């Protein structure tokens, strides 16, 4: 494809601009804002975007939104004239925005306006897809530096490159290997998605119980279909078996009910009423028999009871008399016992009364010295002792000498006077006072320490008082008074003890009364002990009580019989009546249906009937329940029978196996496909490496001459004679730009092939130093010999270096 002319009317800031292109080098020169990049975008837009492009798409935002006329324009329009094949000329016109247009003028002057048809017609003319053009043929300035990175993510461009290169190695046979590979992968994916072909199970082991809902491949879907059918068959079989079992069960229970229960019930119910009557009469008859027996016994017993009543009554009377005699004896015995007691008491009390009289007399003979008198005497005695002690403490000592013997009456203290004869010398010792009396003289010496006189006076006074007191008590000394007092006290105690003893014995009686009473008791009587009499009396009372009770019972029994039968004579009448009733019941029983032998009693029959009824009712309930269950089970039966499902399963299994066979075949094809690619892959990229090195070495100023590719993408650069290698991500901006330029040229060269084509580069020489720029320009010129090259630049020097046809763009004037 060779571009002839592009017209923008309007596009971006350009209202209307025509740019013609020639073959070889075309330089679009213009300052910044002249519209060079706009021109490149317009060519890309018209080739790849129909007018119907949605405004919310990312392409619209990238290629159209920035180019809508500002501020009011709503439509942009481009036309592109190009030649293909042997000079066949086409004109493509498109308008985007409010006015939409897609038109392709064909070489035969006809025109196509359907966008889809235009796309179909353009596809072979363009040879490659949009990705390849973006990555290789249409290099916008911003993309140029990042060519390597952009190509790495541009699978279409690298795919086209790989395919082109492979075609150099072997012929494609008219097919696109990439398309074939994609078709193979698509087929494999459609078959095997979420299926593990090797293990023959769903990926992740997700069976029918936990199936994948979305994204299933055909094999997995077929597998689920098979498993689902198997499950349905299992469920259907189980349901069919359940229906059959329920049906059999229902049949059996209905049979049992109809054939056994209901006939039995019917037979039993037929005689139920009579058996019920029998159930009433038979106990009644038994009762009548019982009663008859009872009356017969009574007939014999009544006279015996009357006889016993009489006998016991007589015994009771005797017992009452015996009891009265015993009570009398008891009274007499009690009296005799009391008299004996009085006598014994008198014997005990009398000595005590006598002793009490003696002791009282002895007490009366002793002076009346009481406790107060003794205490008063003791106080006086103590006072006297105190005064005497005080006086003794006033010690006097004198020495008397005389020439002649001297007779003296000496009184010391309050002591007794002594008659002394002093021969010559004497030493006197005195207490408080010394009174020497000798005929005609008296010498009284008193202690000067205190009131000796007063003390002596008090002593005298106290002594007198003491003497008076003793005298009043008719004793001489205090000790004597004390002795008498103690003696009195002792006697008083004895008197008191005796008095208490007597009072205790007599209680509230007086001794005189006792003595009088005893004197009046007659002679002592001989009697049985109270205990003996009491025992006899108790025994008599018990017997009396027992007889009384028995007689009361006999009386009640007789009364009852009299109430029942009126009199003993009427018992026979009752017996006759009873016999008549027995005959009547027996007659009625004879008329009733006999109790079948199977049952021991009517009660057992009725119980059995109740059980049969219950069983019949329960059977009916079971039948209803089974019917419900059966209906339910039937309603759950699948619409398709198990046989139909089994046939369908065979069909599905066949389909499943066919799909697996096909998947294996597809995998085998893919395997061989990859093998062949692998075999040729090692040499497929050699031509690209050669071309790349041819373009790359000059633009690096001959610093590097080796490029190492990973697929079609450069990984490292290096020098052929040396071990210096650099990863491409570490290259300088200038070297990177050079590599990008070389890569695009090398790729374009191979992609074009012999057909030729166009390559558009937006200012590719920027960032290169002058030498590299010169080499690059030369290289581009050489390149343009095999195809059309359109280069934009803002640098007139670059334009000059590139030579070729130069178009100058004037800056866009904004009005």
């Amino acid at each position, binding site marked *: 494809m060779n571009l002839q002319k592009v017209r923008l009317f309007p596009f971006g800031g350009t209202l209307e601009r025509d740019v013609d292109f020639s073959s070889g080098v075309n330089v679009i020169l213009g300052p910044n804002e002249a519209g060079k990049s706009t021109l490149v975008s317009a060519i890309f837009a018209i080739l790849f975007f129909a007018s119907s492009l949605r405004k919310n798409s990312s392409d619209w935002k990238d290629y159209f939104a920035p180019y809508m006329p500002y501020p009011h324009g709503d439509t942009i329009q481009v036309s592109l004239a190009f030649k293909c094949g042997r000079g066949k000329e086409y004109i493509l016109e498109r308008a985007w925005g409010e006015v939409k247009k897609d038109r392709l003028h064909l070489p035969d002057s006809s025109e196509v306006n359907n966008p889809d048809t235009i796309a179909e017609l353009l596809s072979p003319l363009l040879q490659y897809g949009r990705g390849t053009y973006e990555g290789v043929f249409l290099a916008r300035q911003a993309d140029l530096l990042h060519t390597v990175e952009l190509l790495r993510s541009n699978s279409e461009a690298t795919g086209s490159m790989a395919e082109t290169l*492979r075609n150099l190695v*072997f*012929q*494609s*046979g*008219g*097919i*696109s*290997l990439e*398309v*074939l590979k994609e*078709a*193979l992968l698509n*087929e494999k994916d459609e078959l095997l998605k979420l299926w593990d072909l090797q293990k023959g199970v769903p990926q992740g082991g997700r069976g029918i119980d936990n199936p994948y809902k979305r994204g299933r491949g055909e094999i997995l879907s077929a597998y689920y279909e098979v498993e689902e059918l198997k499950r349905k068959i299992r469920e259907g079989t189980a349901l*069919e078996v359940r*229906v*059959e079992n329920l*049906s*059999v069960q*229902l*049949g059996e229970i*209905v049979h049992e009910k109809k054939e056994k229960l209901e006939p039995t019930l019917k037979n039993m119910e037929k005689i139920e009423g009579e058996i019920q009557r029998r159930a009433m009469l038979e106990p009644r008859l038994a009762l009548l028999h019982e009663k008859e027996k009872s009356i017969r016994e009574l007939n014999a017993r009544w006279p015996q009871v009357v006889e016993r009543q009489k006998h016991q009554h007589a015994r009771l009377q005797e017992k009452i008399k015996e009891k009265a005699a015993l009570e009398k004896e008891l009274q007499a015995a009690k009296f005799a016992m009391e008299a004996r007691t009085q006598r014994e008491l008198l014997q005990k009390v009398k000595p005590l009364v006598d002793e009490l009289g003696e002791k009282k007399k002895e007490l009366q003979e002793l002076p009346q010295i009481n406790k107060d008198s003794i205490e008063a005497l003791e106080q006086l005695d103590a006072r006297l002792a105190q005064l005497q002690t005080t006086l003794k403490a006033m010690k006097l000592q004198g020495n008397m000498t005389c020439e002649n013997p001297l007779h003296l009456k000496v009184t010391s203290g309050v002591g007794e006077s002594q008659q002394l004869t002093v021969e010559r010398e004497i030493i006197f010792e005195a207490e408080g006072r010394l009174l020497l009396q000798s005929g005609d003289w008296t010498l009284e010496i008193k202690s000067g320490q205190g009131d000796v006189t007063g003390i002596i006076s008090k002593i005298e006074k106290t002594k007198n008082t003491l003497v008076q007191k003793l005298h009043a008590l008719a004793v001489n000394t205090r000790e004597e008074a004390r002795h008498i007092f103690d003696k009195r006290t002792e006697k008083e105690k004895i008197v008191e003890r005796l008095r208490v003893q007597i009072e205790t014995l007599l209680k509230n009686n007086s001794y005189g009364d006792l003595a009088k009473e005893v004197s009046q008791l007659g002679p002592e009587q001989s009697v049985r002990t109270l205990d003996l009499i009491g025992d006899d009396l108790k025994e008599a009372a018990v017997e009396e009580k027992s007889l009384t009770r028995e007689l009361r019972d006999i009386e009640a029994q007789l009364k009852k019989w009299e109430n029942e039968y009126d009199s003993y004579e009427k018992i026979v009448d009752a017996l006759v009546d009873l016999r008549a009733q027995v005959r009547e019941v027996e007659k009625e029983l004879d008329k009733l249906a006999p109790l079948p032998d199977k049952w021991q009693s009517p009660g057992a029959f009725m119980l059995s009937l109740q059980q049969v009824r219950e069983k019949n009712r329960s059977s009916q309930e079971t*039948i209803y329940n089974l*019917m419900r269950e*059966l*209906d339910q089970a*039937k*309603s759950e*039966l699948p*619409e*398709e*029978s198990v046989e*139909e*499902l089994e*046939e*369908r399963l065979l*069909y599905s299994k066949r389909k499943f196996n*066919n799909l697996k*066979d*096909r998947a*294996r*075949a*597809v995998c*085998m*094809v893919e395997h*061989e*496909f990859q*093998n*062949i690619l692998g075999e040729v892959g090692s040499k497929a990229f050699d031509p690209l490496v050669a071309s790349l090195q041819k373009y790359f070495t000059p633009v690096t100023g001959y610093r590097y001459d080796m490029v190492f590719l990973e697929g079609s993408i450069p990984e490292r650069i290096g020098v052929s004679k040396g071990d210096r290698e650099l990863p491409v991500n570490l290259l300088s901006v200038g070297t990177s730009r050079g590599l990008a330029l070389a890569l695009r040229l090398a790729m374009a060269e191979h992609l074009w092939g012999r057909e030729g084509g166009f390559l558009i580069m937006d200012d590719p020489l920027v960032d290169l130093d002058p030498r590299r720029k010169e080499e690059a320009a030369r290289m581009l010129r050489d390149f343009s010999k095999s195809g059309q090259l359109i280069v934009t630049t803002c640098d007139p020097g670059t334009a000059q270096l590139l030579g070729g046809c130069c178009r100058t763009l004037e800056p866009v004037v904004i009005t």
Partner: protein
Amino acid sequence: MRIKIFHTGDIHLGMTYNNRGYPQEVRNELVEARFKTLARLVELANHEKCKLFLVVGDLFHRTNVPRQSVLQALKILTSFEGNCVAVLPGNHDFRDEFSALWKVFLDAAPDNVLLLDRKEPYDLRDFNLDMTLFPAPCDSKHSGENRLGWIRELGMRPAGIKLGVAHGSVKGISPDFDGRYFPMEERELAELNLHHWCLGHTHVTYPGGLTLESPFTYCGTPEADGFDCKHSGFARIILLDDQGNQESRCVETGRFKFNELGIKINNLDDLLELEREFAGKGENILLKLSLRGTLPRYEYNARWEIINRIRESLFYMELDESSLSVEITFDTIAEEFARESFPFLLLSRLAEKGETEALQVAYQMIKKVNK
């Protein structure tokens, strides 16, 4: 006195045909066809002036068919102009206690429609037929024992024609490997001393053609229901007298014919012959066609035209071409692709390895992407 009996069964009304991948419209027609066939049977019985219309089991496909289907069947049976219609429950429409299906049937059935659901003689003298039916009704879907026991134990036999009616397999005649379908034996049937036995269950009529020897006849299904049923549907018309003389003949009754063909084709002429075979008579044919063999490339590509014509001429066609392939030889490969081209390398390598299926896949795929 001879009585003419229309002997049919295994009609399977209510069959849904869900078990194959039929399109909905095909299924609808197949479902409806079974009712139409019943109507045709009654019409045929009327035309033949049969006195007894005897259905020997499986009138219905299952016990839970919709009430409407039961009533529709009864309406058709009511149009029988003979003396009596007798219907035996089969193993698909077995009669158990309180069966809803047969309750609906009995509630709506007119007096001359009998349900042979009891193990007792059915005296048809009330319907002016000197005949007694001895039925062996099915009371479950499967059973290892037949229901003939009561006849063996029966003492007195009435006068007139005594006809046995049963549904189940007969050893040696019907496939019943597990003995689950009320199995009977020919000797056992003969020993019961009835004039004849009208049987159902096996979908193929037995014996074929006219025969006077067999103590029993299978009527077969009157309308084929799948590719395992090769015939076009039959019923039997039996003339029976009280001396045990009987004449039995088959009548064709079905509309649809299921054909299963596996054909090896070597060239398009084989397909064209198949087309000629169905020409003008295929509108009621369902064909399951398996093609195998190899065709030269040009013929392989041209086969569709003929196959589509065949398909259009038929009611339904199911095609399996998994064993049909293009004839791919080294010469074919070399002729079609340049030597050393990728397709050549790939196909010839698969051919060398004998991976025929992979070779076909690769070839088809290359052709597809080459379009």
